[in-house]
């Protein structure tokens, strides 16, 4: 019997969910499992949204900043590690600074429906200087000084996985990053995948992300290139280095060429 198409969608339809969104989150970490096909689609077609949330922002963040897709970026690390910075981050962009802990607290507050979660003030000295929007509070039990970290609800989260089924169950493959937390904090989550399978649990593997949290599934082989998606492929440093050498106004064309040329 033929499988139902379930939540299967085209890349274009899934990409459209981000148009004008208040906050879009991209999963993955470093060069691993970044939803780059989606990011290239936005850059190619000039789609825009307000805020991009990432934990570590790499090439996907750089190209969205360079192409003017995201109006601002929220994260605790931006850069392409040993490869330096690309044209988007070199040119500078509007950044909402976070620490590792403050970002986790904000996402957890969104998941739990809390109006804020407390960050020990001693861990937020630098953050408080950069983020005057964060309010100080005192713990009613210990009198400890704290920063109140507000919730960070996500409009749409995009996660790239090694395998997924049509119902939205997904196996990440390599780095788990914080993709499950992003999906929990999101109103809608799109999973793109290298392999679309009928039996996600074949071989005794459990799903990292399960169907109640997923709105759409996109079959996008090579969708994390030129980054990596284990166990399928590793980051393509020559292509990544070529990207870092681009001028900012060449980024959208680079994205289009990779999408249309199937280079991803």
């Amino acid at each position: 019997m033929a499988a139902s198409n379930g939540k299967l969608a085209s890349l274009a339809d899934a990409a459209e969910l981000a148009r004008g969104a208040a906050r879009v989150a991209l999963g993955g970490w470093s060069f691993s499992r970044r939803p780059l096909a989606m990011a290239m689609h936005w850059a190619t077609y000039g789609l825009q949204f307000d805020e991009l949330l990432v934990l570590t922002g790499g090439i996907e963040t750089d190209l969205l900043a360079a192409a003017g897709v995201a109006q601002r970026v929220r994260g605790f690390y931006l850069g392409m590690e040993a490869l330096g910075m690309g044209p988007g981050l070199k040119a500078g962009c509007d950044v909402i600074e976070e620490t590792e802990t403050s970002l986790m607290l904000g996402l957890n507050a969104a998941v739990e429906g809390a109006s804020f979660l407390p960050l020990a003030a001693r861990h937020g000295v630098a953050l408080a200087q950069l983020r005057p929007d964060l309010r100080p509070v005192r713990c009613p039990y210990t009198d400890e000084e704290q920063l109140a970290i507000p919730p960070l609800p996500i409009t749409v989260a995009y996660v790239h996985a090694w395998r997924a089924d049509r119902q939205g169950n997904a196996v990440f493959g390599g780095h788990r990053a914080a993709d499950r937390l992003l999906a929990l904090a999101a109103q809608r989550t799109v999973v793109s995948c290298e392999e679309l399978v009928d039996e996600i649990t074949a071989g005794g593997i459990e799903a990292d992300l399960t169907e109640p949290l997923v709105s759409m599934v996109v079959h996008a082989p090579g969708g994390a290139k030129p980054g990596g998606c284990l166990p399928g492929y590793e980051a393509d440093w020559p292509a990544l280095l070529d990207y870092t050498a681009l001028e900012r106004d060449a980024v959208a064309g680079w994205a289009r060429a990779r999408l249309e040329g199937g280079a991803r």
Partner: protein
Amino acid sequence: MNDNDNDTRSNTPAAPADVAEMMVCTMSDWLLRAELIQLGLASALNQVAALLAQARTNGQGPALEDPAALTLTRAQRPAFLSRSERAAQIGALRRYEAPEWIGQMMPRLAGRVRQFVRPLQIDAQGRINSLRVADKQGRLRRFAGLAGLAELAEIAQPFLVYLPQQDSRCFVDAVDFVVADPLAAHAPGAGHVVMVTDLAVFEFTSAGARALSRHPGVTHEQLRERTPAGVAVGSVPYTATPDAALLQRLRTQIDPHRVRDIEFASGPARRDALLRLYGREAAAPLP
């Protein structure tokens, strides 16, 4: 100084330690007694030093947390940079989710974890800047980010720093922005920062900052010139050079692809060095 573009340098046992090798061997000394080492992102020298420390204890010393796959492992392996995610999964005891490691594991590691951090700037008070520095026109330029340095300053003891190229731009009188203040993160008198550079080893405590040793070949004048005035560099011994067996282990087992050279390259030479490393690593077997 290290000429990292010269791939004709031999790995023969007889070759004396170059600057990168001096640094990673010295850095590994400071990691031997950790219960756990965090590698940190974008870290080449730290990775090599950590793997060397692991090998020196025959796997009985520190466990390794590797953010390339967010794994905890005791597996002994060679260093990889372009293939670090796959390498980090070798012998993984667990692949963590980021919220689990950051929110639940790190707070439980106080006093047991060490991590070498490469800051944009460090000052004579041991304060760390990883976020932004002023350019020649005084405009602030943003770099990596706040990451988890404030928390790390509290749990890592000593707080470890490295600078592959110590100069007046990165070792300064006062940082442009304080991301973490490791001495202030501890009770008075308890904070301890150690820094390994291409010139020397330094220590920062509430009593002040001073050089502990300078590397062979570094003159007192060179050290004074590139060190803030507030840091004592008076008569200090030479850093102990690694013995032949340790160098041999580093060159043949831990870092045969020369990951250790990457952080010394800049400009067009860096791109070439990265591509050469990528090529060497691509040809290497990995599970």
